[in-house]
C-alpha cells in the first residue's frame, strides 16, 4: 500500500492515479461521515463531492503534522456545515420551543432507565441521526462523535456556546426517546 505522504506527493505532481488512489482510500469512510451530517445518501454524496474537491484543491496546504484522514475528515465536516448553512437561509438552529418531540415522551420521560440499545445496528443509529433536525444533528455529531468542544463548535457554527449546549441537550433527548420507543415497539410485537 502506498503511504499517504507518497500519495500526496503524487497528487501535488499532478498524477491522476494518485488522486484516484487517494479518493479510493478515503471515500467510503468519508461518505460514512457525510451520511451522519446529511439527511439522506444523495445529500451526503453531494457533500462528499464538494469535500473532495476542497481536499484536492488544498492538498498543498496539508502540513503532514497530523493524519491525512483527520484532515480530510475536518474538511468534510466543515463542508457539511457550509452545505446546510447555504440550504437553510433562516439558520440551522431553531429554538427549543419549535421542536416537537416526535414521540411525545416529553422532557421528563424515563430518564433513569437503562438504555436498551443492545440490538441496535449502525444502520439503525444512522437513520436516527438523519431524522434529527439539522442543527441538532450537526451539533450532536460534532460533539458526541467527532469530539469537538462546545467552544470549537460555537466558533465553527457561528453560534454561542450556550446554543451549542442546548442543541446537544435536545438532540440527546430526542435520540434517547427514539431508542426507548423503538424498544417498546419491539417488545409489543413480541
Amino acid at each position, binding site marked *: 500500500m502506498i503511504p499517504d505522504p507518497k500519495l500526496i506527493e503524487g497528487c501535488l505532481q499532478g498524477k491522476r492515479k494518485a488522486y484516484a488512489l487517494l479518493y479510493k482510500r478515503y*471515500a*467510503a469512510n468519508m*461518505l460514512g461521515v457525510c451520511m451522519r451530517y446529511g439527511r439522506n445518501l444523495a445529500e451526503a454524496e453531494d457533500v462528499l463531492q464538494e469535500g473532495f*474537491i476542497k481536499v484536492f484543491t488544498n492538498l498543498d496546504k496539508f502540513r503532514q503534522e497530523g493524519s491525512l484522514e483527520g484532515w480530510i475528515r475536518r474538511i468534510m465536516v466543515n463542508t457539511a456545515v457550509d452545505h446546510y448553512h447555504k440550504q437553510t437561509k433562516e439558520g440551522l438552529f431553531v429554538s427549543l420551543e419549535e421542536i416537537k418531540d416526535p414521540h411525545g415522551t416529553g422532557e421528563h420521560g424515563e430518564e433513569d432507565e437503562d438504555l436498551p*440499545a443492545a440490538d441496535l445496528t449502525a444502520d439503525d443509529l444512522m437513520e436516527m441521526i438523519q431524522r434529527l433536525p439539522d442543527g441538532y444533528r450537526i451539533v450532536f455529531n460534532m460533539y458526541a*462523535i467527532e469530539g469537538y468542544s462546545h467552544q470549537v463548535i460555537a466558533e465553527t457554527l457561528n453560534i454561542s456556546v450556550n446554543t451549542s449546549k442546548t442543541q446537544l441537550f435536545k438532540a440527546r433527548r430526542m435520540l434517547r426517546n427514539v431508542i426507548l420507543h423503538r424498544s417498546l415497539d419491539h417488545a409489543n410485537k413480541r
Partner: protein
Amino acid sequence: MKNERDKIDDLFRQKLEGYQIRPSVKVWNNIVNRFSLPHAGPFHLLNMQNIIGALLLAGAGVTTYLLWPASKVHETVAVNSMEMNLTYPAPPQQDLHPQAVYQAPAINQENSSAQHEHPGPSNQNSQPDDPPDNPESPLLATPSQTASEDLMKSSSSEAKLTEDQGFSDQPVINEFKSIEKEQFNNAAVWDDAQNLKKLSPLGSPFVSYQPGNASGLRMMDDRHRMQDERIRSRKADYRVPAQFSAGIHFLPEWTNYHTGAAAFQSSYTQELLASVQLRNIILRTGLGINRSQDDGNYQVNYSKYEMTGYYIGTSFENGGNPVYDSLNYSVDEHGVYDTVYYNEMYRTDNTYTYLQIPLHIGYSFLNDRRFSFSVTAGPCLSLLMNEKKSDPAFMDFAAQNVTMQDQTPVRRHSEWQFQVGISTRYLITNRLSIALEPTYRQYFRTVYEGSDSGWPPYSLGIRAGISFHF
C-alpha cells in the same frame, strides 16, 4: 442524568465510528469533471500494466522463436545424414580421385531427399534400421552376396548420377569399385562393417562401401555412435513438429457492464493472432483493436417560459342596448405562464477504442484431417487508447439557460480480462484454415474508475478468422 447522556454519546460513537458506505460512481465522475483532474492521455506507455503486457508479448515471442525451428527438423535430419556420409574419413592407404569420394554420398542423397518428401512415422519405419529379422535384410546375407548386390545397385545409381551431373570418368569409378571389392573380401573388415551398420541409424548401404581397413572403421565407431544419438533425438522432434500459424480474426461481442442501462453493449475486435502448436498444446498471442459501445449520461438543465395553468375569465356585454335589461355573459380561458425549470437525463452512445494483448494457452483435443477442436484460455490486457463521446441531441429551441453536465462514468485506462473459448478449425488447404470460436470474457473488475463495487462485466462473443499455416 449525565451518565445517561454519555451512554448515548458512547453508543453512537462506538457504532458509527468507522461507518463506511461506498459512494456511487457518479461522485468520482463529478469530481473529475469539476476539479479538472489531469488528463495525461488515455495511454501511458510506462504504466506498470503496459510493461507487464509488453513482457508477456516478448515472452510469447521468445517461446515462438524457440518452437519455430522444430518445424524444420526433417530438413535438418536429411541434410545431416548427408553430412555424416560426406565426413567419413578417406582410407589411409588409398589415394582416390576426389570425384570418386564425392559420388558415393550422392547415392545416399536419394534416400535423404526421399525422406524429406515423405515425412512421417510411416517413413521412419521404412528406413533400413529395422531389426535384422527380415530375410532380405543385408545384415543376414553373406558378405559376398551383400557386397555384390549393393555394388550392383550402387553402380547403376552411380552411372545415372554421373550422367546427370555431367562427368563420366568411368576409369575412376571402376577403380573405386575394385578397392571396395578388395576390402570386403577381408573377413575382419566385414565384422567391423557389420557393427557399424547396426549402429548406423539410417542403415545406409554406403557404410559397407566405405573403403578402409578394420582399424579405420573402429576409429569411426564412436563418431557414428554420437551421430546416431543426435539423429535419434531429432527424429523424436521430427515426428511431432511444431506448427506455426498466423491469422486475422474478427470478434464481435456483447458485454454486460451491470450498469442498469442497456443489458448488453456491443463491441468489435479485430485481431492479428499468431499461434504455435506443439503436440496438443497451443500458445497464442497477438494484438487486437477493440471498439466498445457504452452509454454516455448527460444531465441537462434548462428553463422554459410556458403555461403552468389557466384561469377562467368572465365578461359580459349588453349588445349595444342602452337599457340594461339583458346581459350576455362570455367565459374565456386564459393561460398562466411562468418560468419552469427542467432537469432531464440524456443517454448518448460513446465509443471506446482499446488495444488488446491476449496470451492464450490451449489444448487441442480432437484432430481430424480437416477439423480440429481446441479449448483456449488466458489473460488479455486491454489498454484504453481513445474515447469518442457524443453530445446529447437536445433540440428544444424554446429552452433557455441550457446547461449540460457530463455524468458518464470515467473508464479505467487499463484492464485485465480472462478469456476462454472453444475453437473449431477447418483446414481449407494445406496452408489455409478458417476457425470459429465462441468466447467468454470475464473482466477482473469494473471498467469504471473510482468504483470497485458491483459486478465486473462479462462478454459473450464469437471469434471468426482465417489463418495461414507455415
